[in-house]
Each structure stands twice: as C-alpha cells, then as structure tokens.
C-alpha cells in the first residue's frame, strides 16, 4: 500500500479533522505593525507547540501529555514571515510509524494553522509531529506522549 493510501485511510478513519486557516496579524497581537522588510524574507516558523485545543484562535493548554480520554491532540504552528502562498505539512508519527499527514496552506504575510487527531486508548505511546515544507525539509519536530 502506498503511503498516500495509508494516509487517506487514516484520514478517513478520523472522526473529524479540522483544518482551520485563519489570518492573524501581528499588529492585532502586538498592537502595532512591523516595518516592511527591505528584501524578501524566507518562510520562518515562529511558533510550534502541542496543545489540548484551540480557543479564540490561540492554543489552549500547551502540553506534551495527552490522556486518551481527552479525545484529541492538536499541533499548532505559526509562520512569520510568509513571503508567498505556500504549503506546509504536519506529519504525525507514532513510534516512527506514520499515522497522519495534513497539508496546510500558508498565505502572506503571516499565517497560523493547526492540525488535530482523534485519540483512542490504543493510541497510547510516544508520538511526534514533523513540520515540513513541500520538499520534506523539517522546520521542527514536536514530541509528546499519549497515555491511557
């Protein structure tokens, strides 16, 4: 079975996958705008963390332990700057075995996005999420555990 098919089947088996894209300006966060860059900057990962959920466009309860009873795990990433419209991936692994992959679209000038998976008790164990670009370059790896 091809990796794409694996991912497809896993994705379909998930109860819900929420891919929300929302644009948040740093001006809103910081209250003032940054000066325009002098030259085109490359794509930069500003924040990446695991959390229990998203509340008001922000990660809620950052953690590295996810009891299966919690029902979900969320990977939140924020990129700044985003020079052009581009695609990144959240690749989820349990003990080095791929379990899910999400393609997320980023739009200039900055963008935050997240992916989440449903949890069951059989998912207990160490996990990781590789945040990569389309070429497979890993921006960051987030590690966490699912417990029973």
């Amino acid at each position: 079975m091809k990796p794409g098919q694996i991912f497809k089947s896993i994705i379909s088996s998930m109860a819900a996958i929420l891919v929300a894209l929302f644009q948040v300006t740093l001006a809103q966060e910081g209250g003032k705008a940054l000066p325009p860059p002098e030259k085109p900057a490359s794509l930069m990962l500003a924040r990446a963390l695991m959390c229990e959920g998203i509340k008001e466009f922000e990660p809620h309860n950052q953690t590295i332990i996810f009891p299966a009873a919690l029902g979900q795990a969320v990977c939140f990433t924020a990129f700044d700057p985003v020079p052009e419209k581009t695609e990144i991936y959240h690749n989820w692994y349990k003990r080095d075995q791929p379990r899910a992959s999400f393609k997320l679209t980023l739009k200039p000038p900055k963008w935050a996005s997240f992916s989440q998976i449903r949890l069951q008790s059989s998912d207990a164990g160490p996990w990781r999420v590789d945040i990569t670009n389309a070429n497979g370059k890993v921006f960051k790896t987030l590690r966490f555990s699912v417990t029973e």
Partner: protein
Amino acid sequence: MHKFLTFVSSIRWQDILDITFNGYILFRLYALFRGTDTFRVLIGIAFLWLMQRMAVSMGLILTSWMMEGITAVAAIIVIVVFRNEIRSVFRARNIWSILWGLPHKQTRTPVEIITESVYALAQQRIGALIVLPGRKDMEEVVQKGIPWDGHISTQMIKSIFWPNNPVHDGAAIVRGDRVAEVSAILPLSQRRDLPLVYGTRHRAAAGLAELTDALIIVVSEERGTVTIAKGSELRTIHTEKDFKLVLRRHLGIREDQAGYLKKRRIELSAAAVSSLLIVFLVWFSISRGFDAIKSFDIPIEYANLSPKLELLSSSVTSVRVYVTGSRALLRSIRPEQIRVRLDLGKAVAGTNDYAITEDHLSIPPGLSLKEVRPMVVDVTLDERIRKVLPVQADWVGKLPAGLILVRARITPPEVEVTGPRTVLDDIKTLYTTPIPLNNITDSGTTKTGVVLPSALLTLSPKSQEKVEVAYEAGRTD
C-alpha cells in the same frame, strides 16, 4: 586401498594407547602364567568370551546370555581354584618383576652335585626323596617340613638322608642352590597300577607328581635304584648321564644355552605380537564391528566476520549432524566435541549461501560424517554503521488531576548507536524506558535509560547509557 587409508587415518591416539596397554597386559599374563594350569584355563575363558561375542553378533540371545554368565562364573572359579598358583606367581616378586621381568626356572641348581649325591646314596642303599619344584604352588599338597635353608652339597644331602639322622624321613625340597626344607610329607598316590615293589617313598613321589609339575627323585634303599617322578610318569634312570639330562630339562638348563635363549626370545616375541594382534582384533570387533549412526544438534559458529559487517540473521542457528562410528565411540561422544564452523571471511553484505561440507565440520577421530541437515545455510549480513538518533521520553501512567506537562528537555538530546544499516535505516527515534507520571507533582528532573529497539544495536562508547529528563509542569486553565 582408499578404505584402508580411511581406516588408518581414523585411528586415534587413544586407540593406539588402548591396544598397546591391553596387549601388554595380555603379554604379561602369558609371561607370568605360561606353563601353568591357570594359563590353560584363561585360554578357555577367552574362548568362551569369543563364543559369546559371536553369539551376540549372530543374534543368539539365549546363547549369548548363557555364555556371558558362564564366562563370568568361570572367571570367579579361576580365582578361587587357582588362588595358590596365582599367589605363587605374584609371591616373592616385586612390582617391577611383575610388570617387566620374565619368570625363569631355577637355572642355578647344581645338577652335578645332585646327581653325584643321588647316585652315591643309591650305591650305599640309602633311601632318599628329593623334590625339585616346578612353577605350581605346592603349599596345599605338601605338609610343611622343617626349614633347612642350607647351601646344597653332596655331604649335606648324604647327611640329611643318613638313616640315623632325625630328619631323614620325608622329602627334602630343593629350591635353586639351597635345600629349603627337609622332612616334608608328600601326598601318597592312590593309583592302583603302580608296581608292587614301590613302597611309600615311591607312592609319595607319584602323589606329588600327579598334583604338581614338580620333579621328584626317589632313591630306593632296597634296590639301590634312582627313580624320577614327573606328571603321571615314574621312570627309573640307570645312568648318571640320563639323570642329568632329565634334571636339566626340568630345570630349563640347555646344553646349547645360546640356542635356547634365541628360541626363548623368538617365543616371547611371537607371544608379544600375538597379544597385540589379539587385542587389536578384539578392539576392532568392539569399536568397528558394530557401526551405528547418531545425530547431534550442533550450533553453528561463525568466524572471521569483518568488523565492518554485522550478522543480521541466518536461516538456522544449528544443524543436525549425522555421524557414523562404533557404538562404543558414539556413546562416549559429547555434542561439544563436534563443531560446525562457517568462515565468513569472504562474506558480503546481503544474503550468503553456505553449503555445509566436511570442511566446515570438526568431528572426533574414528567417526565419519554421514549427513548434515539442512545442507545449506543462508547467512544475512549487513554493513555496520553509526547513527545519531534523538531521544524521546516515553511517558506512561496518569498525571494528577489539573496538572499538565508543558515541555520536557532531554540531556543529551541525542545518542550515537552502532548497528546494521538496514536496521538503523528504519529507526528515527530512540525512546527512554517508560517514565511514570503518577508521582509527578511539580517540575523536576529524572534519570532514565535508553531502550535499544534491536539486539543488534549497541550504544557507542561515547554515548551515555542514561539520559536526564527535565520537565516543566503547569496547571490546566
């Protein structure tokens, strides 16, 4: 010819020692007991044993069982019945003479003195009874006389049998050049065919001659004759020349001493060769006559594996080796004495096929390879590489209510491991031993080990076996 060479090459040094040792024992038995009844009975027992072996090889169960019993009983009977003869062989001998020396008949007995004395006594019609012992023990049949131990001379013999001498009755026993005892009482013969002219002295001589291999000289006081008793024969010797001849024959003294010694050497050499041959045949019948097959499960040993390569797997870890040889030898063989050794010096990464041949086997001498199963062993090797892998905490259990772990930092974050390329290619992360969450109440650190997911992996010497996990705890919103 090939079979002969194979057989010769299969003889072990232990076999040579075995045959030589037992051959020498047989030769010594011959040298010590030849000419005695014990030797003749021993030959009879050996014949019985041979019959028993033949009965076994022919599958005659009852006969072999009976022969075995008779042989065992006969061996005990020999010891009981011939105990005196056996004792006489070993008596008065030191260990060296038993192991190495040859028994000689008394060669120093002065034949001339005895002859002169005997015929002088005969001429004077003085009765006399003189015993020259053979190799058989006489203790059971001769009533012990008076110890004398005097150097033999004509005067002494004459004085012993002088009619007024208190010890003139009975027999004088001569050993070597000494008169050992006098007044010894000999057993009387019960034969009815003896001439009536023979008196008690002659009956005593005949009685002892019948029971032993001694030579007894009788001088008749009535007739002045000299009679010699040996075996069942009583013979009157008229001339000193004939008398000396009989004495010399009994004492093993040859006129032609050089010729006698040569003949004796040939006899002993023939006995030695025969002993070796007999033992060799017995050894052959026992060790080679009943070949059997036995199988052993032998673990495969690998040698000369390049340090750059790693043994990933083999189709089997042991092979069953079927060897043939004598049952006696097979019974004594332990599996550790058989080795299967594969030389991986020319092996390459990937699967290598090895056909197990005699070149790969080490089998004790005397046994030969019959079969090996499986005949082919697949050995999979891989390139040995090093890889730096991140370490991740493996949390288990349940955190107290309201508590969360925000982040964790592992020191060192990476460790280097060594192992086969194909194994390491699939491994992206190493995990710690499970770290329980139940006891965590606040931020802290813990030390824990790193789990290697394959037995083929090893931590590089520079990597630590334990890592430190620092965790930051927080409260849920």
